[in-house]
């Protein structure tokens, strides 16, 4: 699936570039793409390292265990295949809470750790996602963030009279997407 999408982007991008006479721009995209990725990685490395360090303190102090414990009912429903005391639950709980609060940079390391732990529990054929992984990423991709602060900042910048007026509607919309994501994942779990 990912191979197909990636190939579609690259092949489709170059072919449309040729048709539309934009090969110069495609050239700089090919050369510049790696560069912008490195720049992003450079920023990301600093922030992810800081959050991983802070989260490690939280983990060692037992905070993450407490957090995962509080989320047991939700976890049991979403991830029935992960044993209750397994580390995967802790990282998933951290990822969800960090996303929820809008701490995207803290969410990424926790999420990647969660995937590592989920892979250890994966009973599918090699290279195939487990149901727990599908559920985890589905929930992750339905935007858990309650208040999108950067959107409020842009609204303010462009002269909105009341930038925060969309917050309530945003929360309801986020709730809808998350619930829909969970329902569809539960429905498809046995079929695909």
């Amino acid at each position, binding site marked *: 699936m990912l191979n197909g999408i990636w190939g579609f982007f690259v092949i489709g991008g170059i072919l449309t*570039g*040729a048709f539309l006479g934009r090969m110069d721009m*495609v050239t700089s995209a090919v050369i510049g793409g790696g560069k912008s990725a*490195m720049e992003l990685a450079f920023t990301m490395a600093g922030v992810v390292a800081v959050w991983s*360090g802070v989260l490690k303190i939280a*983990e060692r102090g037992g905070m993450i265990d407490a957090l995962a414990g509080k989320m047991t009912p939700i976890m049991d429903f979403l991830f029935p295949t992960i044993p209750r005391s397994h580390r995967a639950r802790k990282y998933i709980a951290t990822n969800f809470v960090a996303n929820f609060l809008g701490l995207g940079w803290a969410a990424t390391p926790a999420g990647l750790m969660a995937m590592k732990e989920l892979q250890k529990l994966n009973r599918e054929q090699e290279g195939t996602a487990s149901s727990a992984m599908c559920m985890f990423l589905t929930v992750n991709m*339905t935007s858990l963030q309650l208040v999108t602060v950067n959107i*409020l900042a*842009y609204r303010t910048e462009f002269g909105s009279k009341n930038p925060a007026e969309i917050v309530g509607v945003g929360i309801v919309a986020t709730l809808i*997407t998350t619930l829909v994501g969970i329902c569809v994942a539960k429905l498809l779990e046995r079929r695909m």
Partner: protein
Amino acid sequence: MRILLTISDFLIPVTVLFIVVFGCLKKVDIYEVFLEGAKEGLQTVLDILPTLIGLIMAVEVMRAGGLLEILVELIRPAAEAIHFPAELAPLSIVRLVSSSAATGLLTDIFSTYGPDSFIGRTASVMMSCTETVFYTMSLYFLSVGIKKTRYTLPCALVANIVGVFAAVWLVKLVF
């Protein structure tokens, strides 16, 4: 509004403060443990670096070649047929692929229609309830070598499409 911005200013420092104080109380070797975690964090970024390069290169090539614009034009008649605001069609597609491109479109929308217009409000809500599916999926799955993603993509797409329509409907309902 001011309260929300103040809360968001406080959020990160207070979270860090809370965790560090908690660590002290639990007699954790805070600095040593922090360094241990930071090292793991750097390793994580190093591990996902090739994925990141591949992703960003592909998305930039697609944007530069004009494929994204063609996709948006293909969607437009369908959007109009179901009375979906055509001005928002590009944003709903681009959002799935690239966060920075979506932010660019959002600011375009704000400067053309204003953030307090129907289009501006709906765009704000759409940005709040959707996610860059392609990026997230690639990053997380490829970090553990998963190629067969089963039903993840359909789930994420359905949820995001519902989110886009929910945004339009909710903004019409509330404002």
